[in-house]
């Protein structure tokens, strides 16, 4: 095979029904970039509408892209695409995990793994360079994810990186994860692996990812990238005054400062000033533990961790000795939702318990939950599971739907008292599908159907459900008004989109952000000040398309959409400008395939349009505006102020959207993509422009193509 650059050039295909292992050519899919884009093409071509997530005919695609493994900052992510069990129509969906699995897969010579079929008995997949074997996993079945990783590595050697499911995935819990390393989860597809009797995938590689371009040019580009990179979520302003910084903002994740330490390191490591010109402190600037928990987390922090080739360490790695009391190992790691979702299950709050002060309990409680969820492999539907529980409990519904003895066996008094050991009982019931209660992890749509949640649930702002499909807000209307709100309308699960957040959450002054927005999207009106929104306009629609496209691009390259794109920088001498062309520059140098920023954005739009077409084919609906893109009611209803009076939309102090304005927003976004402006369905002209005449033909044959 000819040398390939960026890409390894090979896709591994495994049929667990027949045991057949084969190789496919990556570059035949190169119009779809990699990772998520290529996975969408495979799902379109090979998984027929009507296939259900747990059927052997469903496929699950583990994908990396051409930048993964090259050393590009924040390029350690694995994209996983399959049908989503928690979706009402089993919509195709992607989950993602960080860690070190993806780079090891590249170094073993594979860009992607496509798994289909179902093994007769539990198996695990062993990949050592081009040697691939399906191994017996009967002895591993039933184990948690931590032990499973160690068991696989004991066969393969300590270098192995492992992705695995826990008991939740084995038991086909809809809300379950695939996980790798200490704390990197891909939420939603654990059950798909379970349904295939696939417990784990171990990879170990002695190969490489080759760079097509000049080594010095690569080093220069990397240097540029490292100068514009910020802290977690591309926040470029520190949280406290610094000698080098013009601005500061208390809510920033750039928390490093003098006097703040990784307190459990030996000896403690000071995070320090973190001048952005100092390349040796980039990894110290995001001290996420104190951001997520507060100052009491400092003493528990061993260090910050994260993913391959990422200098921004967003996972807090803690030593929590109190965990030993519950027979757990004291080291625990996670970030954001990994901590917040157990806190969400404890919706009455976590208070002093088991001898922990309230301040310590605020760390110990979520640590217990994170450890359990990560070992069992339970997903939270982006924090929604806690709010589902809250509704069912507080409305008295749970008492009605659970058998009396089961209800009585749940330690509600712990929940009421804020004793986080409630979580031990909670996650066990969920992971082992014990009793009626375990349906709490069916996913919000299926749960609401089963337990007959009322409209007060769907329409209640407190429960944060964004769509009747059963997924919640995720940087939605609170994030750039219509920009975030519309971004949240196109996915088949929570939007998982940070393209916009990594810009508007930068903590730079709004006037400066608007100036930069003007340069990228054609007018400063693309961005409004927080909670001071103006009606929809075409520039916001461009911002939406760009955000959706970049997220698809990042999941295809694969780089982290929790850091990229680089719209801004921490450098005054750059006037705080980033460089939105960095993805294309890295792509061209890595692969030798020259693509401009615009061309790469077009490729991403092609992938996103294909995702749209799969969704449409699965739903069998002509009108996606009505069938797919709507929100729950609270989103477009005026909020009440402290005085009890409604605050009119588009006045200062409210994030509420307005119905007609949102419909206009949809129209403008459809126009940006070239989709049908009435129904939001991809048109023949649009599909043909992207080189997907076959897709147009298929949709036409089903009567789904707009006339």
């Amino acid at each position, binding site marked *: 095979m000819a040398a390939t650059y960026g890409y390894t050039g090979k896709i591994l295909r495994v049929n667990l029904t027949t045991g057949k292992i084969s190789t496919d050519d990556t570059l035949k899919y190169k119009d779809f970039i990699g990772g998520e884009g290529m996975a969408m093409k495979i799902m379109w071509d090979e998984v027929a509408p009507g296939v259900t997530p747990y059927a052997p005919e469903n496929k699950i695609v583990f994908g990396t892209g051409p930048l993964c493994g090259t050393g590009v900052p924040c390029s350690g992510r694995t994209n996983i695409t399959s049908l989503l069990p928690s979706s009402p129509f089993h919509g195709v969906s992607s989950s993602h995990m960080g860690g*070190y699995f993806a*780079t090891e897969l590249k170094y073993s010579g594979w860009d992607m793994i496509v798994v289909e079929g179902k093994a007769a008995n539990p198996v695990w997949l062993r990949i050592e360079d081009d040697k691939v074997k399906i191994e017996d996993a009967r002895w591993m079945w039933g184990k948690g994810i931590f032990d499973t990783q160690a068991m696989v590595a004991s066969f393969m050697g300590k270098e192995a990186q492992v992705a695995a499911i826990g008991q939740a995935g084995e038991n086909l819990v809809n809300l379950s994860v695939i996980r790798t390393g200490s704390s990197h989860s891909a939420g939603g597809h654990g059950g798909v692996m379970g349904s295939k009797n696939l417990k784990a995938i171990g990879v170990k590689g002695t190969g490489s990812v080759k760079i097509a371009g000049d080594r010095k040019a690569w080093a220069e580009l990397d240097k540029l990238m490292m100068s514009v990179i910020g802290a977690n979520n591309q926040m470029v302003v520190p949280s406290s005054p610094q000698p080098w910084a013009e601005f500061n903002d208390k809510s920033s994740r750039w928390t490093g400062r003098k006097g703040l330490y990784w307190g459990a390191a030996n000896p403690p490591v000071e995070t320090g000033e973190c001048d952005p010109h100092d390349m040796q402190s980039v990894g110290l600037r995001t001290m996420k533990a104190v951001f997520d928990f507060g100052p009491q987390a400092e003493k528990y922090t061993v*260090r910050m961790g994260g993913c391959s080739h990422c*200098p921004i*360490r967003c996972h807090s790695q803690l030593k929590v000795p109190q965990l030993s009391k519950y027979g757990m190992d004291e080291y625990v790691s996670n970030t954001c939702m990994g901590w917040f979702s157990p806190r969400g299950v404890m919706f009455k709050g976590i208070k002093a318990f088991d001898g922990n002060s309230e301040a310590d309990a605020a760390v110990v409680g979520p640590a217990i939950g994170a450890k359990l969820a990560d070992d069992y492999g339970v997903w939270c539907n982006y924090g929604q599971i806690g709010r589902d529980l809250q509704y069912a409990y507080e409305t008295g519904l749970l008492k009605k739907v659970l058998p009396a003895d089961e209800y009585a066996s749940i330690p509600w008094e712990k929940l009421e008292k804020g004793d986080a050991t409630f979580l031990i009982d909670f996650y066990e019931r969920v992971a082992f599908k014990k009793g009626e209660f375990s349906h709490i992890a069916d996913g919000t749509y299926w749960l609401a159907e089963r337990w007959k949640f009322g409209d007060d649930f769907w329409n209640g702002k407190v429960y944060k459900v964004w769509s009747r499909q059963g997924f919640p807000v995720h940087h939605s209307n609170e994030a750039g008004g219509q920009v975030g709100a519309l971004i949240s309308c196109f996915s088949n699960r929570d939007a998982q989109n940070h393209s916009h957040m990594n810009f508007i959450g930068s903590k730079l002054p709004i006037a400066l952000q608007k100036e930069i927005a003007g340069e990228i999207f054609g007018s400063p009106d693309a961005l409004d000040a927080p909670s001071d929104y103006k009606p929809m306009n075409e520039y916001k629609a461009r911002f939406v398309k760009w955000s959706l496209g970049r997220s698809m691009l990042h999941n295809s390259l694969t780089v982290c959409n929790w850091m990229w794109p680089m719209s801004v920088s921490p450098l005054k001498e750059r006037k705080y400008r980033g460089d939105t062309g960095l993805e294309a520059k890295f792509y061209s140098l890595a692969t030798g395939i020259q693509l401009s920023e615009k061309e790469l954005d077009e490729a991403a739009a092609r992938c996103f349009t294909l995702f749209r077409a799969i969704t449409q084919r699965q739903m069998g609906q002509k009108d996606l505006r009505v069938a797919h893109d709507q929100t729950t009611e609270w989103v477009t209803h005026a909020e009440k102020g402290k005085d009890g009076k409604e605050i009119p939309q588009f006045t200062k102090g409210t994030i509420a959207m307005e119905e007609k304005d949102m419909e206009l927003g949809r129209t403008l976004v459809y126009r940006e993509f070239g989709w049908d402006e009435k129904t939001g369905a991809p048109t023949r002209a649009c599909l043909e422009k992207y080189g997907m005449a076959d897709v147009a033909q298929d949709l036409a044959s089903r009567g789904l193509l707009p006339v």
Partner: protein
Amino acid sequence: MSDSTEKRETILSKDQTRRDFLKMTGTGLAGAFVALTLGCATTVRTREGNELRVWATPQGALVHDPNRCVGCKRCEAACTVRNDGKASAYISRIKVSRNQNFGVAGVSAAYAKADGQLGNFRIVAETCRQCEKPACGVACPTGALSTDKKTGARVVNAKLCVGCGACHDACPWNLPTVDAETRKSTKCLVCDGDPTCAKNCPTGAIRYLPYAEAEKLLWGAEVVSGATA
């Protein structure tokens, strides 16, 4: 072998005098007879007629601090892109990946309390110590390992390397690694005295220290690998 011997003699006559060599090595082998040299790795003969290979003292060596390391492996990618035009963990001259999850000791039943990402989060990178008497160089059957003239680092001459792996086997830490794609050995060459791994470490966990200083840190009683600082 005879070809390479001839090359060595040529290099000696062109580039180096005995006085230069002794000054450089600082070994003070009074009366020793310089027979051959290859770069700066030199074979000397004692008065008694025994043949010894003597290696110039390196200027410096890398030292890694597990307490500051965040396990991002930017060092490995930077090392191999600079030196090989491709990113790879396996042939990286600084070894993080192999110890990442389970530490130097590897998988154990007590993994959750041992070193590594799946344990106590302590990540130990192994770095080349540029040993005074490098086992890799002594073991090399083709004389492919020599001392870099500028930095004193022990480096592989890819033209002479036959990819046999003797260097890998001889090194107590198995640091030299035969590239499976080129069949040539790779080992730390300290990048002309400005190691790429250290420059690309985002937490300052990797330092290139003067040799004497590095030696103290690398060979102390507490040291289990190429680390601690």
